[in-house]
């Protein structure tokens, strides 16, 4: 059974995704790290589907649909921000910051 190795690997992959979100400033790279986290969760679903039934694989299907929608809207927002600020660095997005 590959359940334990798959869950261990998905934990590591999820942590790498979180680490990427925390340590980068480029909005597009942060977005890619979010995709990495979604994929780690997909791996968990598929691993558990092996012993709990096909529902897990169906759910991965839905996660992929949501990820595609999220990527399209998110990248459109990044494009709109870039047009406004000429930058995708989160350092320059401080409109709500005091001072």
């Amino acid at each position, binding site marked *: 059974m590959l359940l*334990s190795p*798959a869950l261990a690997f998905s934990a590591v992959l999820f942590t790498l995704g979180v680490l990427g979100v*925390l340590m980068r400033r480029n909005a597009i790279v942060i977005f890619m790290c979010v995709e990495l986290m979604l994929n780690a969760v997909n791996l968990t679903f*598929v691993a558990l589907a092996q012993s709990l039934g096909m529902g897990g694989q169906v759910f991965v299907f839905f996660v992929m649909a949501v990820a595609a*929608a999220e990527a399209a809207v998110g990248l459109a927002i990044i*494009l709109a921000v870039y047009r406004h600020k000429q930058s995708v660095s989160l350092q320059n997005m401080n409109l709500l910051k005091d001072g």
Partner: protein
Amino acid sequence: MTLTVFWFFGVIGMGSALLCITRKNPIASALWLVVTLFALAALFVLLDAQFIAVLQVLVYAGAIMVLFLFVIMLLNLGRPGPSDIKGPLGLGVAVLLGAALLFLLQPLTQTTLPSAITLPPGSVVALQQQQGIVSSVANPLFGAYLIPFEIASVLLLAAIVGAVVLAKRKL
């Protein structure tokens, strides 16, 4: 044997994910993420989810990553510039939080499923041989999960309209 193959692709996936989050150039990051997605597709095959593996390559590596690369190209972000990785303090906090998260997720590796809810071993493979690999996913999708499936189509339509409205200069 299967475990060896699993860890072979697992190490490829982990290494490329690490490279993805540490490369300065966003294009390099995106391409390493594609490698991770391919490694994950291989793991899906090992976990008896061949249809999901094909979808992973088609939808993630094929469509979503092309969208990312397209936006990077459109914004001309591939040129060399200062690194966007945070300084020592931010990096230290990030690594600390990552280590804490890994510690919290570590009990996952000792997961045991109660026998009352698990299917007998090999029953997923038997179902796939009986119904076909695609049908075994499609039957629940168009049966028990029909309403979520229809809602997903509405979600995708809303995303398309939203993306066009957001990205257009003047409506």
